[in-house]
């Protein structure tokens, strides 16, 4: 064993370099911190555009919407976040109910149909997403599918349905079902679903990929994941089925954004919201992520049924936030979590 002084010094130099790298990455020139419940490959390009146009740098924390909502509630006034961008109204509502969101200016709120924003103006809808049943056309036709989501509890669907029980959009959907149909009916539905041993996935996109890959026959997802896949791959074996019966299966729920009351740069934060409601961003939501734009003047992509024809049930969005943890309880009690 020999004192390897050169090696030792080299080690010290490397460690020092690493320290420098780390401290540099800490002190970046960003000005706004965004908590984004929408994934990087969906909205990252949009954030880049915003920085290009305004010169305002963004540090974006990507995670699940519910996860970030819980984090914001945990952080309270200590939160480094300026903007919360979520994929479902339940998460937004939960942060708003905790008194953490500032009221948005009326000129921003006025751009969007009030059905898709917070009644007290603390967050605004940015795009609409319809619940659908995605299915494998090589094995099923639309007639084989049940007319409501409640049909999936029938024994014939055992092992054939994919869900994302930990995902914010599924939990928000269950919360909406609690609001619309009540807790007992929702619990019964979840138990029936669990008895059929559904395929469990982390998110919506793997369900669509699994249906396309032949791994599972159908799945409960939001409408636009399949359209994204089709844009990348062309023809797909998977297709969307809209349950147009006015039940929870035909829900349309907004993704939306709000400004944190503790933000030290509310002006820039509001500029980001304004940007999300601009024609450019709305067109991006319509044409790149295939959602329903919520600002008038921008049309959804061709091939999507118009928003008015979906028969979406009316929903009290503030009740949704309060039902969220109950939804998680029920999903866990059914053994799906």
């Amino acid at each position: 064993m020999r004192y390897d002084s050169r090696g030792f010094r080299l080690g010290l130099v490397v460690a020092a370099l690493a320290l420098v790298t780390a401290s540099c990455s800490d002190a970046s020139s960003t000005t706004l911190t965004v908590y984004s419940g929408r994934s990087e490959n969906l909205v990252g390009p949009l954030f880049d555009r915003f920085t290009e146009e305004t010169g305002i740098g963004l540090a974006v924390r990507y995670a699940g919407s519910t996860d970030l909502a819980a984090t914001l509630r945990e952080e309270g006034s200590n939160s480094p976040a300026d903007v919360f961008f979520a994929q479902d109204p339940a998460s937004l509502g939960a942060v708003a109910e905790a008194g953490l969101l500032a009221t948005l200016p009326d000129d921003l709120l006025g751009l969007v149909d009030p059905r898709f924003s917070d009644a007290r103006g603390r967050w605004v809808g940015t795009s609409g997403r319809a619940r659908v049943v995605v299915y494998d056309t090589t094995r099923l036709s639309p007639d084989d599918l049940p007319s409501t989501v409640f049909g999936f509890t029938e024994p014939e669907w055992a092992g054939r349905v994919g869900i994302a029980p930990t995902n914010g959009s599924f939990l928000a959907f269950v919360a909406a079902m609690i609001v619309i149909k009540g807790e007992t009916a929702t619990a019964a539905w979840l138990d029936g679903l669990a008895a059929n041993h559904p395929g469990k996935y982390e998110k919506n996109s793997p369900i669509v990929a699994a249906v396309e890959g032949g791994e599972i026959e159908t799945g409960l997802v939001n409408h636009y994941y399949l359209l994204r896949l089709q844009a990348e791959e062309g023809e797909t074996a998977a297709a969307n089925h809209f349950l147009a019966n006015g039940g929870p299966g035909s829900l349309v729920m907004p993704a939306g954004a709000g400004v944190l009351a503790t933000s030290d740069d509310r002006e820039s934060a509001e500029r980001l919201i304004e940007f999300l409601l601009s024609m450019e961003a709305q067109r991006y939501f319509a044409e790149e992520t295939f959602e329903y734009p919520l600002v008038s003047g921008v049309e959804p992509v061709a091939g999507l049924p118009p928003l008015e024809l979906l028969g979406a049930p009316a929903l009290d969005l503030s009740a949704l936030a309060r039902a969220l943890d109950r939804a998680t309880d029920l999903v866990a009690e059914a053994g799906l979590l």
Partner: protein
Amino acid sequence: MAAPGSLIERPVVRRRQARPAPVILWVVATLALAPAVVPFAFLIGRAVAGGSKAFDTVFSDRTAELILNTASLVVAVSLTAAVVGVAAAWVTERTDLPGRRAWRVIVALPLVLPSYVIALTVISALGPRGLLADAVGLGLPTVRGFVGAWWSLSVATYPFVYLIVGSALRRIDPAVEEAARGLGSAPRTVFWRIVVPQLREAIGAGVLLSALYSLSDFGAVSLVGFDSFTRVVYAQYAGRLDRTPATVLAVVLVLLAVVVVLVESRLRRGRPFVPRPISRPTRAMGLTQAQRAAATAGLSVLGLLALALPLGTLLAWVGRNPAPDGIPWSSLAGSVSASLLAAAAAVVLAVPTAVLVVRHGSAATRWVERTAYLTYSIPHITVGLAVVFVASRYLGPLYQSMWVLVGVYTAVFFALALGALASALSQVSPSIEEASRGLGRGAWQTLLRITIPLVWRGIAAGGLLVFLTTMKELPITLLARPTGFDTLAIDVWSAAGELLYSTAAVPALLLLLVSALPTYVLATRQR
């Protein structure tokens, strides 16, 4: 990878009256472990404060089901790892199988594969429309759930058993076996009655590592969608506004880890195996033609499933769609810089701590070692949860900073550095240091000019181990990282979660490439 057990098993060069330790050494040891221990204490406090709600969470049917799920996974993986590891070690160490040297490398190599990379390759290679189905035109079954988790974790952990048992086999005196054979025992009887009892200690150590690994694993179980405890803790954390249930489950998970350690030490109780000096090398057992064929076939299957399948799958995905999103340079930089920092911090803190526990050994310093070892065994999902909880409330601007992340890595992997350094230091006679002091050098000078140069190999080994382990780390990074900070592990996990296999394969291969060199150095120079 060094067994944390090596903390306890080092040879004592010279026993002497320990002098009371300078306070500074205690301060360093405390600093090193505090970033993990303090948040954990807070977490327990929060779980207890959860009161009746916490009670409901722990004693629900669902929790029982989760414990059952997790226990069956841990038992299945440990058994598989034990059988595969012992068999492979026996064949490559004790027989005259041709190509033993090459087989030893092949069988040990899956050690560098993180569980989530194995899981990624298993789910993307199999399945009705997976890579293999495409290649051979067969509809293969989907490997998700229990089978997928069992497979991934068995591949990830059998090398622990293999390496520890292999090295124990080299230390067993062949005379006893030969005597038994000479007295007319069949080879099989010799194996079960003479060899296995002597290996009990080694098998136990390997199985303990395997069991703790599969209990704490988060990446593989979440990718294959198996409801093991860690996955549900994360689901509760990410899917619920109230974080008390996640906290309670995370604490229960730690109790399960304690149970694993206790069960293992119970099973191992009895006279410990003390290696005796070996008079001569063991004579290799001659294999018959048929046995040779069977052993070669067995090792080939193992090599195919544990090494060729994962590597081949990653390469095939990259080949299909080369770097769809380019090379993730920033994640590579993130992984490497965070791991280097953690490794540097761990060895810098471990040198004084090793001096404390080796040179000033007492009942109190044994608690330092035990705390380091226990901290290393806390499932990472629990550590991550605890750190977020404490940092978001009490650490102000440090919350979500690189400093907190590196501090936690350092504390959690401190046992690896301390183990390497303590064992290196205990092989250095204290009289050399005493001579230096006697000749008028101060304590610091002696440390810098005498002790550190003498334990240089321990420093290198400890640093490399911490570096490698930090590179692979997933759940703590996922929960406690700075905003906008990505690592290769995070990239693999999130792309695989979206079934973007080509995208996931690039960071996975980079991770293996960066780990390959330190692993090679560790494996060849630490003999």
